[in-house]
């Protein structure tokens, strides 16, 4: 085991991915402190305000950090053009209790603002709470279901196996996204955001467990022939005890990697649902529903910074994949290692 963790940490990419995810999760956890604004803090007069930099030099002189004010003008197509107003300075304040913010009425938009003048960085940080946890919780549920169903099917074999596997195939047969939509349509539309969150988690995990169950079932078909399973039977252990304690633990090396590799699916699933407006509802933020603002090409052209959530989805999905790959390499005894 120690050797395995050592091998894992030797993989520089995996280590980097672990750090990146660590930063993202820490941000989500400490959102109330790290984010400069609340996720619903609007400033309608600063709609689609471009990213502003924090300055330290004014008039050739060094000063404490500040941001310039902005003046709103319109071009000939009546589109908003923000002009930096170098005569107005707003000082950056620290620990207010947020990590940093700017004295009113100035506002700091490190990654720009959305249609209602809400800070995109803040909304990304708050949105991470939804987008990054949905994968973890979803995977826990589908992992438990997949292991149990796969374990039972593989252990008993015969008719039980047949029924359970056909059920899995029915689930896997339906194209995932349409199944997602159909299940979402079955959920009442007067749910509050917490209920919506959990219904999305449950919908995603209902779709996700079948693949794992099928592989686990295959492994159990061979594991059940092991001597220690027969021994456990002769000592009077019940079938469920044998499955949970003596069969499923032996599938762990596969399933840990499988779980890591399936988390991105949940993140993308939530994003897709929220993108088309069926997921987390405004004003609550998730990376997916922030992107629904970016569905029009005109908006992307004039305010490309509304695509930032996509970057974070991309980064977290890649990180989970890299970690999953590294885990699989480490846990799979069949893979040759050049030492």
């Amino acid at each position, binding site marked *: 085991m120690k050797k395995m963790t050592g091998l894992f940490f030797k993989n520089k990419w995996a280590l980097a991915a672990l750090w990146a995810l660590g930063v993202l999760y820490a941000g989500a956890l400490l959102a109330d402190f790290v984010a400069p604004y609340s996720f619903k803090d609007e400033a309608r007069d600063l709609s689609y305000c471009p990213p502003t930099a924090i300055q330290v030099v004014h008039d050739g002189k060094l000063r404490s950090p500040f941001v310039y004010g902005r003046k709103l003008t319109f071009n000939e197509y009546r589109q908003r053009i923000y002009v930096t107003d170098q005569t107005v300075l707003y000082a950056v304040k620290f620990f207010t209790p947020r990590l940093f913010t700017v004295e009113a009425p100035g506002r700091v938009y490190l990654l720009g603002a959305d249609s209602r003048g809400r800070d995109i960085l803040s909304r990304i940080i708050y949105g991470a709470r939804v987008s990054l946890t949905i994968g973890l919780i979803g995977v826990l549920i589908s992992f438990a279901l997949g292991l149990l169903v796969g374990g039972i099917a593989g252990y008993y074999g015969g008719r039980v196996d047949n029924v359970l596997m056909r059920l899995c195939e029915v689930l896997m047969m339906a194209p995932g996204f349409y199944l997602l939509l159909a299940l979402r349509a079955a959920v009442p539309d007067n749910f509050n955001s917490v209920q919506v969150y959990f219904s999305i988690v449950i919908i995603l995990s209902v779709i996700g467990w079948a693949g794992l169950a099928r592989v686990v079932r295959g492994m159990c078909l061979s594991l059940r022939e092991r001597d*220690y399973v027969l021994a*456990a039977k002769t000592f009077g252990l019940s079938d469920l005890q044998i499955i949970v*304690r003596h069969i499923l633990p032996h599938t762990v090396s596969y399933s840990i990697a499988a779980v890591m590799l399936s988390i991105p699916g949940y993140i993308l699933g939530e994003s897709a649902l929220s993108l088309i407006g069926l997921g987390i509802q405004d004003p609550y933020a998730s990376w997916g529903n922030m992107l629904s603002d970016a569905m029009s090409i005109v908006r992307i052209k004039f305010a490309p910074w509304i695509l930032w959530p996509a970057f974070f989805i991309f980064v977290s999905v890649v990180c989970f994949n890299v970690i999953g790959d590294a885990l699989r390499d480490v846990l799979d005894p069949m893979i040759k290692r050049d030492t």
Partner: protein
Amino acid sequence: MNNLLEVQGLSVSLPQSGVAGARSVLSNVSFAVSRGAVLGIVGGSGSGKTTLGLALLGLLPSVMVLAGGQVIFDGRELTKLSPEEWRALRGAGISMAFQEPMSAFDPVMTIGAQIQETVLAHEKISSAAARERALEALRLSGLADPVRIAAAYAFELSGGLRQRAMIAQALACRPALLIADEPTSSLDVNTQEKILELFQELRRSLGLSIIIITHDLGVVRRTADEVVVLCRGVVVEQGKVAQMMSAPRADYTRLLLEAEG
């Protein structure tokens, strides 16, 4: 006669074995084990001796069926038990120790945890009490340092220690009958001797009845009172060990004796 186990006309067959139709694995096997006695079941490979052991625990492989006969253990007819009754009996009434303890222990659990689990499967006691019972069982099978053994994994122990731990697990719930399937085959001669001594000791101190399944007549001679010789699923000879040794009746037994030299 107070017999702990009586097997009468036990037959096991393979119903679907190709064109030949049903094939018999065990036919009409009868024997009895009295309390505190040691019975040896001897036979070559494929003689059905392991199948016999599994049949006594109701754990025949799924391809085989019980074709007939009765197994009476402690006054109960076993072939009519429900799955739940079988489960309660295994480990607590009849227990089995395996030939290869290396593969009979789950490699990802400590020995102690596995024995504890066996105890908890049969008795409603706290896990601390079950752990005590596990240590006691290890001590009973002659392991001097039960705490260390309990914390070890099967692959960390030597063959002799592993076999003792296996016997400890089999005895943790104080069964009246222990079926030992080739308990010494994977051990060197010295360790074999010690395990056989352990059997004698357990028999004396606990009044345990033991069925030793083996291909080694030497093991039977040193431990058993009576013997059943199986050849291709048929009992070819049974009776007192001393009598079989001095005057074997069946040709097959004579063959085995000669092979041993």
